């Protein structure tokens, strides 16, 4: 997912007349490392998957009930392109409650089809051809493709296990060129689970302002942070928040609503309005019933968030403790629902480890290399799984690691 990997692009699929059928821009995108595992798993029995990227909880009933009610009332039409007024009003109140951040629900909030669309819109609304976007490495697998499709290039600042995968402002600053347009920051991080501390968040924000850069803060995991003594610092919460900060969030992870496809962007009105322009011609509006469900989530879902967060936290300790016990060094992930252990004691590459673990022990994990070169030597393990599955996966992985550490 980096500039280096996209060089070895797949051969052009020219038709007989010699005209290209698939756009070069899309051809440039290498096949997803995650997709490959999907195909490997298909048809295998008894797999325990730590390869997922979504909650194992089903959406709380009162939220589902709100969508059913919305359907019963016949709310089956488009909504405002910005999203329903109720949802934007609730969202503004929620962001103020959580982060003390004030956003005008009329002009500074946009409801999108998941945070994925919000990210795409933010990039398409702000990037010109050749603009560079800086992010940390390893990073979410969609970052390279979406930046590329928006005409930009993704430049990555390496992070290391020794430094707990922290994104350092100094490392980012080294990469700034006249072409740099934005910092794209996934906080908490998928795949590493790293969470920026307040000082770093402020430092990155100030640095961006100094260089006149946009900050696109992908905070989809904002409610899944497990350090009571250091509460999460949203870019939205910074007092000196620049008018070039776009905060992206959603309901998928906090409220177990991945399938509903509803997310949001919060930012200055000119950028939100530009994003809306793209959104209105490509999506029109987020699903109406899903927006009704999101209103219920914001109004009455706080308890659900806390309960699920506690459950993830318990499994997080279980998985991280277990990984360390079986001999895989693992930084304590402070957010999201992923552990990112090193598999270097086995001497295998990430991909080899993941493939052999799947075929030999029936446990699915995602090779760290799918998230960028700094992810090589690691695998992503999701702990949004039942306690029983985590225990069983650890037993199988322990067997696997022992077998392969001895043989080398």
């Amino acid at each position: 997912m980096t500039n280096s990997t996209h060089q070895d692009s797949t051969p052009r699929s020219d038709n007989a007349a010699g005209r290209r059928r698939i756009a070069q821009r899309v051809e440039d995108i290498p096949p997803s490392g995650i997709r490959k595992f999907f195909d490997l798993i298909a048809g295998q029995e008894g797999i325990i998957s730590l390869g997922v990227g979504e909650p194992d909880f089903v959406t709380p009933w009162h939220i589902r009930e709100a969508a059913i009610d919305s359907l019963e009332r016949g709310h089956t039409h488009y909504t405002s392109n910005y999203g329903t007024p109720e949802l934007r009003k609730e969202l503004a109140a929620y962001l103020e409650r959580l982060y003390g951040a004030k956003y005008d629900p009329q002009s500074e909030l946009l409801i999108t089809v998941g945070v994925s669309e919000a990210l795409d819109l933010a990039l398409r609304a702000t990037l010109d051809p050749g603009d560079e976007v800086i992010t940390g490495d390893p990073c979410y697998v969609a970052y390279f493709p979406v930046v590329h499709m928006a005409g930009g290039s993704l430049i990555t600042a390496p992070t290391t296990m020794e430094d707990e995968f922290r994104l350092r402002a100094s490392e980012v600053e080294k990469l700034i060129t006249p072409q740099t347009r934005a910092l794209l920051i996934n906080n908490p991080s998928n795949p590493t689970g790293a969470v920026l501390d307040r000082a770093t968040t402020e430092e990155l924000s100030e640095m961006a302002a100094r260089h006149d850069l946009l900050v696109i803060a992908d905070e989809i995991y904002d409610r899944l942070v497990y350090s009571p003594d250091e509460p999460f610092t949203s870019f939205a919460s910074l007092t000196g928040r620049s008018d070039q900060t776009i905060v992206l969030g959603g309901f998928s992870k906090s409220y177990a609503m991945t399938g509903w496809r509803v997310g949001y962007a919060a930012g200055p009105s000119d950028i939100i309005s530009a994003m809306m322009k793209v959104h209105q011609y490509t999506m029109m509006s987020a699903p109406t019933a899903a927006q009704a469900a999101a209103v219920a989530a914001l109004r009455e879902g706080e308890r659900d968030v806390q309960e699920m967060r506690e459950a993830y936290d318990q499994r997080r300790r279980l998985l991280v403790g277990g990984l360390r016990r079986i001999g895989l060094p693992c930084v304590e992930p402070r957010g999201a629902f992923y552990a990112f252990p090193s598999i270097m004691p086995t001497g295998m590459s990430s991909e080899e480890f993941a493939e052999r673990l799947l075929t030999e022990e029936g446990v699915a994990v995602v090779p760290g290399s799918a998230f960028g070169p700094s992810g090589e030597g690691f695998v992503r393990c999701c702990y949004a799984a039942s306690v029983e599955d985590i225990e069983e996966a650890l037993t199988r992985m322990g067997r696997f690691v022992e077998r392969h550490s001895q043989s080398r």
Partner: protein
Amino acid sequence: MDDILRILEQDARTPPERIAEMTGRSIEDVRESIVTAERDGILLSYRSQINWDALGRGDVHAIIEVRIAPQREVGFDSVAARIARFPEVRSMHLVSGDYDLAVQVTGESIYAISNFVASKLAVLEAVQGTVTHFVLKRYKEDGTLFEAEDESPHRLPVSM
């Protein structure tokens, strides 16, 4: 201690070692907390919920509305305690409204429950009247759905 109790409430079989890891506490701390909670009457029992109906040998259940005359000094408590001691009584609550005690009873047959009401419950001096509702079907008990559709997640095995 709440975190330990919530884990046990979900699965009473969770061993102390696992609870310790899940909560970030020491095993000694977990063991001690459990002993204390048991001693203080907070952690009452470790029982299984069994759907006997599914085996086709379900007992008969009834909900009985009981009107009782409160007594000087002790109010409802004294007679309530007497009723609650009967092993047929599975749960019992003092409630507001048209009657006083909502009593859930279980017996091996309709006859056994009728017999309990007629010969043990209604005859108590403080009991002024009873209305017995036999349970036709149980849908949910103590937070557990009996015939829930499978809500285990239908997730893609690998996703971004």
